[in-house]
């Protein structure tokens, strides 16, 4: 048992923090909210240079061959500054899906590009009427010679508007159960028949509605086995949930640090407000949420990195961290008082980001139900 980072992990963490502090202050998120693409290309290129985009990509495919713990460390650092851009959708969603289920050819074709910053990916999973999970997949993919024709609407697809490829989960077969007959397609983002609409979201991120209207995809572009994407997607969502936790850990760490600093600095009644027990106890409660979120997330990330079964730990992490993030960012506002209710103050960026991460890949209640199942209930 060792709850400290290894030397390498410490270096990664501090260099990631230093880099982002310099390259991605909160002004970047503010600028990007108005930006059509939603990310600064120069920053993206630098991330590629640092090896971040290929953090999980084996060296054989031009990556640096890191593990999920390294990825979590980077995501946490990005969460600390609310770093905008397609890192999550590309590296976590697209990258891990290809790594886990892609063919050798697909890997050879895509992973080096991904690692070099020449590829933006995303996953199209949710559909109208679906909240979380894969229980509703109505987008159809019908075989037509050596192609498939995809029709239907996907929602909350991050960065679809700039994606080179959209990994689209579509139904190729009615299947005996909802779990069967789902296939994952690698769809060229510029294919004819795709209409992307960027949604106006709470966290100023670029989630899209994607309408597939007779979009033709070569049969070779199936990732994994035809009709067997369910388990790939389950696995991917588990990792994505932990990835979101890592972002949240960074996000609430910053919100918390800002708040404690403010509590020490801000004087009312002739003393720092942090000297009042009411504020101190708020802060102590935040410590438990932040520390708890951190370790329960690291535990899940470590299990993934070790290749151990992670369903229980991942759901526990997502349940706790989702709720903790809401509590911490809300208390952050409360302790800051009116100043943080101003647009120009950064606290609301974290309040918004926490919510977006909470609803991504299942909120607290959704994952508590998964925990209950694994308790044998």
């Amino acid at each position, binding site marked *: 048992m060792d709850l400290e980072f290894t030397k390498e992990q410490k270096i990664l963490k501090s260099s990631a923090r230093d880099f982002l502090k310099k390259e991605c202050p909160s002004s970047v998120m503010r600028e990007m909210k108005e930006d059509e693409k939603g990310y600064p290309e120069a920053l993206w290129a630098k991330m590629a240079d640092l090896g971040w985009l290929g953090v999980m990509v084996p060296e054989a495919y031009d990556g640096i061959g890191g593990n999920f713990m390294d990825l979590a460390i980077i995501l946490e650092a990005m969460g600390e500054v609310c770093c905008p851009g397609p890192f999550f959708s590309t590296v976590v969603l697209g990258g891990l899906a290809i790594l886990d289920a892609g063919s050798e050819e697909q890997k050879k074709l895509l992973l080096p590009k991904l690692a070099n910053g020449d590829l933006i990916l995303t996953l199209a999973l949710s559909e109208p009427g679906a909240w979380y999970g894969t229980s509703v997949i109505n987008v159809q993919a019908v075989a037509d010679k050596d192609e498939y024709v995809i029709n239907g609407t996907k929602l909350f697809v991050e960065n679809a508007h700039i994606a080179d490829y959209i990994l689209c989960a579509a139904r190729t077969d009615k299947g005996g159960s909802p779990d069967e007959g789902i296939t994952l397609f690698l769809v060229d983002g510029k294919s004819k028949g795709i209409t992307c609409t960027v949604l106006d979201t709470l966290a100023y991120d670029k989630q899209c509605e994607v309408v597939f209207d007779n979009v033709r995809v070569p049969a070779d572009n199936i990732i994994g086995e035809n009709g067997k994407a369910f388990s790939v997607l389950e696995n991917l969502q588990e990792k994505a949930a932990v990835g979101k936790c890592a972002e949240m850990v960074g996000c609430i760490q910053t919100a918390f640090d800002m708040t404690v600093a403010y*509590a020490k600095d801000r004087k009312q009644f002739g003393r720092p407000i*942090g000297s009042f027990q009411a504020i101190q106890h708020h*802060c102590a409660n935040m*410590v438990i949420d932040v520390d708890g979120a951190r*370790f329960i997330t690291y535990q899940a990330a*470590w299990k993934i990195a070790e290749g151990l079964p992670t369903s229980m730990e991942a759901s*526990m992490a997502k349940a706790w961290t989702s709720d903790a993030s809401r509590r911490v960012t809300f208390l952050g506002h409360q302790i800051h008082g009116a100043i943080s209710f101003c647009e120009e103050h950064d606290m609301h960026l974290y309040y918004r980001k926490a919510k977006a991460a909470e609803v991504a890949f299942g909120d607290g209640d959704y994952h508590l139900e998964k925990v209950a199942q694994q308790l044998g209930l």
Partner: protein
Amino acid sequence: MEFKLSEKEEAFKSEVEAFLKKELPPKWPEMSTHWPGGYGSLESTNEEAVKAAFTFRRRLAEKGWLTISWPKEFGGEEHSYMEQAIFDERVSYYRAPGMGIATGIAGPTILRFGSDENKQDWVQTIAKGEIEMWLGYSEPNSGSDLAGIQTTAVDDGDDFIINGQKIWGTIAHLADYAWLIAVTDSEAPRHRNASLFIVDNKTPGVTIRPIINILGIHSFNEVFFDNVRVPKRNMIGEKNMGFYYMMTALDFERLMVGIGGFKRLFEQFIEYVKQSEQDGSPLGKNHTVRKKLAEIAVKIEMVYIFFWRTASMLDKGLVPSVESSVLKLTATELSRALADVTMEILGPYGQLMGGSKDAQFRGMAPRGYLDCISATIGAGTSEIQRNIIAMRGLGLTKK
């Protein structure tokens, strides 16, 4: 970062587990009505249990595990904190009688700060599990504010003369000695005015009066000291260093939260839920039940992580004062959460105490409901723990 035990630690864990299974009376799980985190329902309150506990402690002493943390030169095992943590976890999981005040607090303090006489007098008897002590810290006007104690020890020739009153004194009536703090210099500033003593319960002038707790059990006591003469050699270490020693001793108790008890009780309750029905359908299919139990499972996981964190910090030579407050706070609040959830799930049956034929889950839930109140009060209230986290941990100031 690594979230698993080393091979050596796993082996030690198995050894502890095997020992516990062998040495505990087979009926022990039913005998023990202890609620994790609570103070009110100690196993030593029923005669059969007291006997069983005594025997078990002797076996622990023989095995050398009563002094698991002590240096080898004093007959200890000198295990790492992580191994102590593993030991505590398993012991509390089986609700076995583990370390008491003598082995957990007095022994290590004497080894670290005691005079040669202190060591001579006490170390061996404590190590063998021959004596037990009670904690003479709190007073009627000195609860959360421990530095406000008023019991005095006045220098008089070869003795100190002690006057005053202690309160709560858990199981003082079953113990042999008090581990007592008293003011030895009334002129000195708070925190630098008191010393630690070992006082024989049988000394003339010591009166122990029972306090019956809300479970109806005699676990607490008021203890009065009326001109009690204590030989000078019973003062621990140096004069007026009492608070310092006491604070340092906190290191030894940081891990003593009875962590395994939470997991055990929860596992048993999950089993109960799986086998029970409510209004004709399985209890475990009820949405609220599922959600509440899942929440508890997450909280237990969290407290465990805080527990391992504290142990691994201690092994690195760090002082986890804030981290152990986080552990204490979350564990004791879990005691309450666990009670609330079990009671809520049992509904009207939550009212039935263990003796009733319709009682569910051995009547543990209502006991827990009562006992958990003590958890967030004893050994530093939740409010005090939050103050420590805010002030020591975050550097927020008092003024």
